[in-house]
């Protein structure tokens, strides 16, 4: 059995309380949400926080999925399983369903949270690509109040995010785009595995040409999990296999994948192109 090192434990009962605890314990304290990334790292002793601030009591405050004005709000404590089952979220954006059904396994999905996924900042996180494709905005709260961070500026490097040690991620806000289609494509070595590569796409077509394109990529070294050059190529063009394939190639050119036991870099680059193409075609088919 793997056992973590000693740590203090506090259970927060509100967002302000959690922020206060973070303040009190300082930068060596960590928030624990679902714990499915943090606890394994602690058991392997790759992470040794001095204190855990448990925010599982904040489900009422941070567990909502709701349309507010022209945005879909998804609380940081929404569990993967809840997002997967949310008719509101998946009805607007089928990409959530595509992605969530291939993230980990039901046991992990029952506990793991949207906020934890984004804050973990793993370069292979699926939801990072999904929210990047959707151009979401992150709402972050700290001692000085709340602020917003565009998701494409949220990740600042592997395992580094815009959330400071004394802040909490509160929710994600996704602009609701009427008439958009979305889809997600992932290659994994086995069900429940992290992606070898994955791509998400969001498309809106107006007057026969693409009016808006969002492409998210994960595990392939895409800056901020997105592919702006490929998106730019698509806007203004009629949707179709040729445009999608070209966009895939452009996206792949701008990736910097690394070889690991999931695959060599050239394969991952190939997947970036292939999965982008497939995700775009899937998204177009759902418009």
């Amino acid at each position, binding site marked *: 059995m793997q056992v973590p090192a000693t740590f203090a434990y506090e259970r927060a009962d509100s967002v302000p309380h959690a922020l206060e605890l973070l303040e009190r314990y300082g930068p060596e304290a960590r928030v624990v949400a679902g714990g499915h990334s943090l606890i394994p790292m602690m058991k392997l002793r790759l992470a040794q926080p001095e204190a855990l601030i448990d925010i599982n009591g904040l489900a009422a405050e941070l567990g909502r999925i709701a349309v507010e004005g022209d945005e879909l709000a998804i609380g940081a404590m929404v569990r993967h399983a809840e997002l997967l089952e949310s008719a509101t979220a998946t009805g607007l954006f089928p990409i959530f369903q595509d992605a969530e059904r291939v993230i980990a396994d039901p046991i992990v999905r029952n506990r793991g949270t949207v906020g934890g996924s984004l804050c973990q900042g793993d370069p292979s996180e699926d939801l990072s690509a999904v929210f990047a494709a959707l151009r979401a905005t992150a709402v972050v709260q700290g001692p000085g109040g709340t602020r917003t961070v565009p998701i494409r500026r949220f990740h600042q490097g592997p395992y580094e995010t815009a959330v400071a040690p004394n802040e909490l991620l509160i929710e994600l806000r996704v602009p609701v785009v009427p008439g958009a289609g979305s889809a997600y494509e992932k*290659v994994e070595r*086995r*069900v429940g*595995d992290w992606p070898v590569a994955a791509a998400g796409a969001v498309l809106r077509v107006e007057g026969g040409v693409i009016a808006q394109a969002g492409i998210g990529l994960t595990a392939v070294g895409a800056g901020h999990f997105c592919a702006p050059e490929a998106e730019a190529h698509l806007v203004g063009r009629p949707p179709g296999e040729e445009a999608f394939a070209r966009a895939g190639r452009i996206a792949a050119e701008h990736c910097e994948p690394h070889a690991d*036991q999931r695959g*060599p870099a050239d394969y991952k680059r190939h997947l970036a192109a292939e999965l982008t193409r497939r995700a775009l075609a899937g998204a177009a088919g759902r418009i």
Partner: protein
Amino acid sequence: MSFGRMHRKEDARFIRGRGTYVDDVRLPGMLHGAVLRSPHAHARIVSVDVSAAEAHPKVRAVITGQTLAGLNLAWMPTLSNDVQAVLATDKVRFQGQEVAFVVAEDRYAARDALELIEVEYEPLDAVVDARTALAPGAPLIRDDLEGKADNHIFDWEAGDRDRTAAIFEEAEVTVAQDMLYPRVHPAPLETCGAVADFDKVTGKLTVWCPTQAPHAHRTLYAMVAGLPEHKIRVISPDIGGGFGGKVGIYPGYVCAIVGSIVTGRPVKWMEDRSENLMSTAFARDYHMRGEVAATRDGRVRAIRVKVLADHGAFNGTAQPTKFPAGFFHVFTGSYDLESAHCEVSGVYTNKAPGGVAYACSFRVTEAVYLVERMMDVLAAELGVDPAELRMRNLLRPDQFPYTSPTGWEYDSGDYPKALRLAMDMAGYDKLRAEQAGKRARGELMGIGVSFFTEAVGAGPRKHMDILGLGMADGAELRVHPTGKAVLRVSCQSQGQGHETTFAQIVGHELGIPADDVEVVHGDTDQTPFGLGTYGSRSTPVSGAAAAIVARKVRDRAKLVAAAMLEASPDDLEWGDGRWSVVGDPSSGRSLAEIALAAHSNLELPEGVEGHLDAVTVYNPPNLTYPFGAYICAVDVDPGTGQVKVRRFVAVDDCGVRINPTIVEGQIHGGLADGIGMALMQVMAFDEDGNHLGASFMDYLLPTSMECPSWELGETVSPSPFHPIGAKGVGESATVGSPAAVVNAVVDALAPYGVRHADMPLTPANVWRTVNGDPFRTDLAIP
């Protein structure tokens, strides 16, 4: 009478969470151990400082290689007559090797204290690629062995070299193929561990440990540590999977024992998942080159094989002494050949020792994979359908018992019938038609066939022993006065359902319900000697012992029944679970009636002491040879390289099926294993010898999502060498299935000119293979 489907008796406790595994053992005053492991694959140990760890308030002892050296226990013999470090004294030779052992009041403290031990290492170059282990100038791993100047362990050959060469000279067609059976791990749900309790007053040592061979462990502890054997009790409680990985003695067990002796308190040590994957017995790691000589019309004439076997840092393979490559020389498979020859060379590398584990029947897995891949390579060369090619070459029923070119005596079988059944079940011709249609549309579909012959039930004492211990199994059967029975066997179940199957065997022989037979196993103080459960040997050996001992009881019951009936034993006949006077069924006496009489004041004939109890030792006259025909259908996504196993048809012949449900369960598990090995499992190492598969994030086990709904079929060829005609089935599916999956994938890739690809066929590997640029699956992906 008692053969047939019944629920497993052991399931009642398992499904209620009431099993008792080693980690469930809690003794008063018990301490906890943790092992400090080497971060390096190859390094000289400059110094080990344990003072800070010893100063930890909860630490009770810190044991190092030096401590053990003082007790003459720093090294221990392996199952292959090599030695292995218990705790390293001079060098570390693989990443994860045991360096020190901490005993503390709880698990957390023991683990914390590991971080307080200061070890200074001087890193050395590592031998990672087995293919360079013998190159001049390769780092020398085993400088502890006197006079050792290279990394060579053994050369071994079987078959007829010259005759085989002559056939190759004149053959119309020859093909050759290099292939790797990668290093994999059995990865049982329950990791290894031990609770050791040395009682200073009685001098008795009790060790709870998930061993597949409790009696062998006891004897080895006695021989190595000099403890008197009657003062050692090994208890192997419920085991969460063994697959061969729990046959040997691991350093952690020895450390737990020493820890208990040193502290005078019981010590529990349970390894974690990464420790299990990094340091316990691996399987396979055979670099093979196969060659086939055939006629143009597809008659296979000869096969020869060269193997480079990576045995890791210590030669610790578990196999009968005479066979350093296990039973690999059964590689002629299921075919009628003129001649065959194999050469196997074993080498040391900076990897964990082990070598036979993982449901492989002593390397029959590698052998079957080799020949079944070669048959497909030949089929591709000749342009013959792979099923048809096999049909042309399978042994015919009239050839049994059949002596193979490498000296095995196959017991029984109708091979063409099994293959035909599998083809019928699969709808083989339809599948091929579907494939042709798909190919025309640019879609990739593959059909893989594999036919295997297993060699299990080791084994006849005159040929087979492990460290001098002959591979015969004892059994004791006690019949209580009311006719309920207790069977004591030497082998131990890790999920095979012995408590049910063996009760059914006794029930069958004695005409009593299986529920009336309790099977006792896994405790050396309570059971007779025998070599344990692995190599699919339990039913062939201990199961035979159970049948024989039950027949002894039945014979004794006959004498008692004769006294009861005032008849001559010669006038009695057995039927319907009763002894009765010939021609007078109403005189019949059941076993329960006879048992009561045997314990009563009934006057018994001369030579019968009373009671019905009996003991036996079963020395198998031959191995048994289960076989089967497997057909797998896959779809491959050419854009991503992903493989989907769509169908899997498995026709198994394991002789008489005692409990078909248990047999099918064994087959289901083995087929899933095969998919795992073929598609996702490998323990690769980077150039520094770092283990790249040391967690379940990296070492992937298949799930139900990767497995199709298995389609099982059976033929039944009883073994003439077994008292009830059973052959053993534990490993059949693991042995036979990887080749079927790989053959299917390679078949799918045929339009790209692909003839072979090494396991595991991950999406990346498939895609690179399609692109003509495959990578080595045993090394870090570049």
